């Protein structure tokens, strides 16, 4: 008995020593440089090659691919592959015709007339005509369709009657010929063409019918189609080449396999092993590593800064109903500290419009870090704080609502440190993303939270109206999470929408920027962009401003096998081999 126990103890000790040694050894060994990119099979031949299957992976599960209902970041890139719209942005950010060959603007900007390319076919072989465009628009904007962007199109003549069910058709959308369709607006709208690049109104096959149905198998006029049964929930989505696509010879790929629900770490190791061709869910530290590696840097695709993030303060709730407190917060945050959380993807912010969006004021100081000013604002608010003694400040703990997982988990802890320096003590409440979103969109539920807005289309109205306009407040589901209601700003935004003169319009948005920075419903903290990396053998890839993953024009020049291209060290480390085996 005793001897057995002694043996067992010795075994336990030996195992512990082994584990400790392994931990230390692997800890040292696995901090190693990134593996080299796989080399191309035909590096000197610029001619695109047909064929091959592209592999992409994502963390999330898409909700569905109906363009009239899709809004989540997982579904949208796939919707963009399945459906082409009338117009879209090209690789340089210019609006170009896609299904529309050209368009003309009449009635001083209140009517848009689109001329479709003749003989475009849907994926099922039917011809696409002006009737289909009208049917698709009415289907998307019908009151029974859960279209998250519907209100964007409320300027179309007859929208109110149609969306309330009073009229059977949308009066403003008229078929003027087999290939000509016109859209009349109640007033000129400078952002209308841009809003057409959203997925909502993209033409759908006749199989979609007149009304939205969740059971419909998505079918459109995009470069790829979704075969029956190709979406295996929780596993992958496979889209195959649309043989009827209107651009001859495109797309080059036979298919795209999009694995869903794959953890970031697994994606990373699969990417380095050549099993994934395009790496989109890249962690912020990995962005820095890939961007710093001279072999991988040319293969990285950085969007311009089209997203703004701020600390949103609920103007209806104490203490943020006091504008001086909001100004104190806006002055107290050293934006550099936020930027350091992910230097490769974040830039310091000082105003609501990101630098890559028209309306950004390059010479405007905006909200900046100024500790002395922050203390002065606290004093004016009636809560003077003495940094020497730590006495004073706002007497109660303020609840801060954030979500996890994500960068917000860390920014919350940075903000807590920043605000402690002016006597505002935060208590962090972490929620799941869905709960967080539901709760912060309700009136009176979250004193302070993180607010982010990425462009839907490059126009200042897309930033001001959803986030800061009083008319965007809804008691139960408000995009305006600061519940900021300023009639002067609302009037300005409405006038700017109708203004056709670019210079005057720019002036109005500049005024709006000054109002929002001074009233500080948000303390703007950083602008961000997405960064993705593709394999060297993924060629012809041009990221688009609004859809970084657009894969309609790429082709594969894959080497024979990963091992041929790089030799033995296909997977970097012990962890790599383990992680690649994760489900």
């Amino acid at each position: 008995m005793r001897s057995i126990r002694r043996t067992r103890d010795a075994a336990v000790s030996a195992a512990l020593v082994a584990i400790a040694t392994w931990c230390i050894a692997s800890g040292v060994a696995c901090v190693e440089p990134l593996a080299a990119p796989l080399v191309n099979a035909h590096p000197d031949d610029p001619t695109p090659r047909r064929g091959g299957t592209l592999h992409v992976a994502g963390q999330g599960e898409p909700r569905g691919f109906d363009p009239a209902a899709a809004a989540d970041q997982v579904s949208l890139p796939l919707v963009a592959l399945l459906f082409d719209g009338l117009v879209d942005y090209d690789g340089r950010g210019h609006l170009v015709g896609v299904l529309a060959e050209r368009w003309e603007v009449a009635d001083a900007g209140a009517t848009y007339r689109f001329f479709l390319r003749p003989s475009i076919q849907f994926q099922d072989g039917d011809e696409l005509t002006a009737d289909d465009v009208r049917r698709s628009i009415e289907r998307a904007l019908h009151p029974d369709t859960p279209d998250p962007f519907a209100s964007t199109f409320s300027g179309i003549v007859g929208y109110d009657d149609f969306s309330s069910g009073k009229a059977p058709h949308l009066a403003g959308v008229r078929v003027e010929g087999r290939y000509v369709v016109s859209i009349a607006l109640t007033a000129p709208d400078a952002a209308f063409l841009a809003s057409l690049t959203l997925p909502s109104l993209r033409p759908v096959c006749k199989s979609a019918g007149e009304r939205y149905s969740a059971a419909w198998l998505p079918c459109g006029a995009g470069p790829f189609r979704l075969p029956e049964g190709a979406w295996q929930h929780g596993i992958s989505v496979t889209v195959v080449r649309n043989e009827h696509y209107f651009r001859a010879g495109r797309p080059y790929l036979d298919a795209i396999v999009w694995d869903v629900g794959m953890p970031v770490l697994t994606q990373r190791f699969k990417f380095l092993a050549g099993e994934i061709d395009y790496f989109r869910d890249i962690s912020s530290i990995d962005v820095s590593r890939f961007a710093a590696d001279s072999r991988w840097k040319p293969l990285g695709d950085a969007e311009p800064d089209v997203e703004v993030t701020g600390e949103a303060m609920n103007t209806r709730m104490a203490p943020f109903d006091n504008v001086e407190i909001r100004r104190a917060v806006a002055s107290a945050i050293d934006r550099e500290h936020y930027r350091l959380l992910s230097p490769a993807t974040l830039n310091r912010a000082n105003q609501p419009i990101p630098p890559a969006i028209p309306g950004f004021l390059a010479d405007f100081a905006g909200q900046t870090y100024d500790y002395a000013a922050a203390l002065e604002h606290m004093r004016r608010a009636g809560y003077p704080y003495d940094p020497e003694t730590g006495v004073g400040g706002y007497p109660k703990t303020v609840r801060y609502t954030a979500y996890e997982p994500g960068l917000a988990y860390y920014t919350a802890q940075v903000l807590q440190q920043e605000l402690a320096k002016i006597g505002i003590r935060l208590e962090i409440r972490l929620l799941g993303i869905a709960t967080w979103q539901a709760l912060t969109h309700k009136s009176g539920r979250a004193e302070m939270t993180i607010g982010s807005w990425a462009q839907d289309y490059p126009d200042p109205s897309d930033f001001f109206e959803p986030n800061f306009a009083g008319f965007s407040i809804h008691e139960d589901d408000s995009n305006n999470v600061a519940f900021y209601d300023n009639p002067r700003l609302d009037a300005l935004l409405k006038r700017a929408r109708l203004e056709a003169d670019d210079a005057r319009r720019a002036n109005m948005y500049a005024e709006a920027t000054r109002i929002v920075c001074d009233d500080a419903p948000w303390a703007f903290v950083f602008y961000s962009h997405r960064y993705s990396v593709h394999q060297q053998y993924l060629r012809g890839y041009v990221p688009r401003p609004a859809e970084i993953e657009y894969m309609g024009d790429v082709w594969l020049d894959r080497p024979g096998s990963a091992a041929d291209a790089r030799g033995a060290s296909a997977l970097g480390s012990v962890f790599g081999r383990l992680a690649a085996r994760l489900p």
Partner: protein
Amino acid sequence: MDRRSLARFRRNRGAVAGAGIVLGLVLFAIIAPMASTHDPLASDFAHGISPSMGPVGPSLERLFGDDRIYRDVFARVAYGARISLFIGSAATAIATLIGAAVGIIAGYFGGAVDAVLMRLVDVGMAFPFLLLVMAIGASLDRTTATTILITLGLTGWLGTARIVRAKTLQLKRLDFVVAARALGAKWPAILLRHVLPNVAGQLVVVASLSVAQMILAESVLGYLGAGIAPPMPTWGRMLYEAQGYIDIAPWMLIAPGAAIVLAAVGFNLVGEGVRDALDPKDA
């Protein structure tokens, strides 16, 4: 523990090693935070990024390196030790107290009391422990060390109750208990003076094993994001924060991971040692 049991414990090298580990951790939890020159909650943004673009690694000045937002991992592990040991022992105290009371009462009175209490335990045990704890944790608006330890304590007594009940059933038929009852002793006195001292050995064993379980449970909660709210450092939270960086900043993972392993191994060895020492069969 009588002298012979103590001698048996000391001859058991695993148990002595376990006691050493536990003592070491307790000393670490007391001394290290005082010795550490860094604030576990404060980011040192000036410390910057390592050449491999991750947090800066271990150095003489910062033994376990930096974490994701430039905080000192050593200081965080040290403060985490305080929280983990505090939650582990306090939750165990609550669980042992409730478990002992329920077990003794059920075992001593038997009948309907026993049936009701034990069916309650059965129902509780039918819930997966972590699921139950997470559900309670999620329903609390704020999660602090206190709420977590109460949650763990209120859900962790079921096993203890069963063990104590079994022992009590055995004890109440023994002559000294029967004699006490015959002499007219009231039941609280019998339970406290005659039954409880005789289940104390079992309680010590269950409790020392339970500390390890509670520390693990707190870590799992933290790792799953349901534990104590940040920025408070707990070992489980630290693992959670480290998981995305295992190949860039392994020290973020190794330090709290090793601490959890050590604590679990230490308390388990002590628990097993006490059990063996008290077991007369092995004498």
